[in-house]
């Protein structure tokens, strides 16, 4: 998605894309072979990791409330360098440590990073001139956390008793 858009247009690029993605996972309480992802991409002159942190921290606050503690943590993804994940304080135990957060007190909600220069080279952008950040977040996972949904399959059963809780 991000690659196609960069191939289509010159920088600067700012986009958010939402859509279904597929993964080889069997259907169970926490996995579905299809789920939805929201991706963001900001490319231009002078875009920094601090911009990414600001953007995602404010998004997490919008999703989970301003009082929600958030951390921005180094990680690894092949298409970004540096890479970072965003965690929120475990909403079940508040950080004490419980099975849900594997006793770490934190729950990962998304992956992100600075677009790898090799990606820019691939789409014909000059990595010496521009930088950019990208992120991807699983919508169902965030919904599970936000609304305390116990079974991810509920999102695909289309039971009106579930759907109608989200208002018309």
């Amino acid at each position, binding site marked *: 998605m991000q690659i196609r858009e960069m191939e289509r247009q010159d920088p600067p690029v700012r986009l958010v894309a939402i859509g279904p993605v597929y993964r080889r996972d069997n259907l169970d309480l926490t996995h579905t072979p299809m789920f939805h992802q929201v991706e963001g991409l900001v490319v231009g002159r002078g875009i920094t990791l601090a911009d990414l942190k600001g953007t995602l921290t404010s998004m997490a606050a919008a999703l989970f409330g301003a009082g929600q503690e958030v951390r921005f*943590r180094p990680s690894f993804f092949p298409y970004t*360098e540096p890479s970072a994940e965003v965690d929120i304080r475990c909403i079940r135990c508040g950080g004490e440590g419980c099975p849900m957060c594997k006793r*770490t007190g934190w729950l990962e909600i998304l992956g992100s990073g600075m677009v790898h220069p090799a990606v820019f080279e691939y789409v014909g952008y000059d990595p010496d001139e521009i930088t950019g950040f990208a992120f991807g977040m699983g919508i169902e996972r965030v919904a599970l956390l936000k609304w305390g949904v116990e079974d991810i399959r509920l999102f695909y059963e*289309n039971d009106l008793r579930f759907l109608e809780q989200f208002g018309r």
Partner: protein
Amino acid sequence: MKVLLSWVREFVDIDESAEAIGRKMSMRGLALEGLEPSGTDALLDFDVTANRPDCLSMAGIAREIAVAYGVPFRAPASRLAPLATAAASAPGATIPITIEAPDLCPRYVGAIADVTIGPSPVWMAERLTACGVRPISNIVDVTNYVLLELGHPMHAFDHARLAGPAITVRLARSGESLETLDGKTRALTSQMLVIADAEQATALGGVMGGADSEVANGTERIVFEAAWFKPQSVRATSRALGLRTEASIRFERGADLTAPALAMARACELLEQIGAGRRTGPIIDAYPRPYQAATIWLPRPGIAGLLGMPVPDAAATRILGALGFDASPGDGGWSVRIPGWRIDIQRDVDLIEEVGRHHGFEHLPTTFPGVQQAPAPSDPRVARDRRAREVAIAGGFSEAISFAFIEARHAEPFLDRPGTGVGLANPLSETFAVMRPSLLPGLVAGVGHNRRHGQRDVQLFEIGTRFSRSGEERVLALAWTGLATPDHWSGGRRDADFFDIKGAVEALAAQFDTTVSVDLPPEDSVPHRVLVPGRASIVRRDREVVGWMGQLRAAITDAHDVPANDVVWAAEISLDGMAPAGAARIKRAEPLPRFPSTERDIALLLDESLSAAIVRGTIRSHAPDTLVSVVEFDRYQGKGIPDGKVSLALRLTFQSPERTLTDAEVERATTEVVELLARECGAVRR
């Protein structure tokens, strides 16, 4: 990677608690996945990312901890008495080592030791067990201990069971096979790297040893191996044989080419320390392609430019130095030499990440990207889908989301021609075997689910993609069963019917394009084979078919366990086939009329088979300019009306933008309409 705190502490002096270390390291790129006490010790489970094979060891984790806390790291080499190695060709080499494929194996370190097989000491067995490795025998345990401690995989052969004895690193011969340590006989291909003795393959290089040369009770002399195998080669072999081991995981991610001699020295030291044996003869180091450290230029402005935070030079060089990089200052940056264990460092951004990571992401300011130019207009399809969603919801429908892959038998009735579905090459199961040719199988499954769970009235819609061999198309589907409107004292109970689903489709179409129409096909035609004949329609935009609607056949609803007597109304219309949202909106405001309008009511006798749409269409296409509106306000059949006829009452409104119309003008215009309908539709004025 599970690490024991006490073991890590052999490489770094750190007094912090396991919890504090876990918290700190999570912010340095080693996410803590779990923490459990292990006696008086603690076991920390770190999620080591795929780019950091160097952290798959106690020493590797210890180095990161040392950098994070700014304390010295005791490098493994510094803790060992230096051991001399001999080249493979040196006189006195106790076993000949030949590397026939130096591209795939640029280094092979071997040593011979006389041993007494037995269990390893309790402390060693306990450490291995805590880290999830089963103790086997003192020799195997030493190799595993070195693997966990230094991250470098090792292997031990029974010297007596090696023909020659000799070691040759080569590609497997076609037709060659090998029984691996797990007892399975593996057919080898000529792409697989093996360790062979003078006669045959005895191990899969970097993956697993062979059963024939396995160290066992009674083994008196061993050959230790510490080598380096090319990641691509190990990955290909591991994948081809479906065989993943602790060794293959490390080699395929990239081991340290400078480490084998060190690993060997440590293994020999441990051997003596636990009384399991003693090395005899020199350590032989066959090293045809020595490590060439890459040098990467790190420009100073690049750090703040990418991170968005300044990092003082002293901090940057401290971090790089502590991680094992050799950074020498140059004009406007540093020239950085990359150590053998950091195969992940390829370009300057990788170094900037190292600096940023250990300087701390928690110190990053939270800023927002500056705007340099107006944002590009949003894709019109986004607004289109949103509008369609709003209208469907306003019509009482709830939004469903179903899987894009479905069962082949559910897809089949929706295909234009049988057998033309888009199947998955490698489906998870029969339930997810083909890409959906329509959203309705999923939607009807939703109806079935709700009906079986006590819901009487179900209105669902979905916006999504349907798939055919000619491509993908974004569509909106509706499914409706039960009451037309919710039960209420003010209105009668009535089941949803054809006109309800038609109304829903028209409401949607009206958002996009006024040229969309729902055509009633002749009684016997079937717009779609999933629909009941005579209870189905085609949706067109101008001449083009953009959808269909009607009652679903029982075969379709039965297949999704909808109760037998349910009538399910459904529609599917192409959103891609519609004009963008807003296209139907007004382009220009009309001035308000300045002169009064005049109404005339007329009653006409017409054939009952004539549809209201035709009457309306006839008037619209021929009426005088002053006719601004036509409303059918009454329809009557019965006493006084001949059989086969219907009385239709129309209210005509006349108005001119230029002046007040006279009675005579209105009368003349009314007569014109009546005569028109008499001529075109056989109407008789009553």
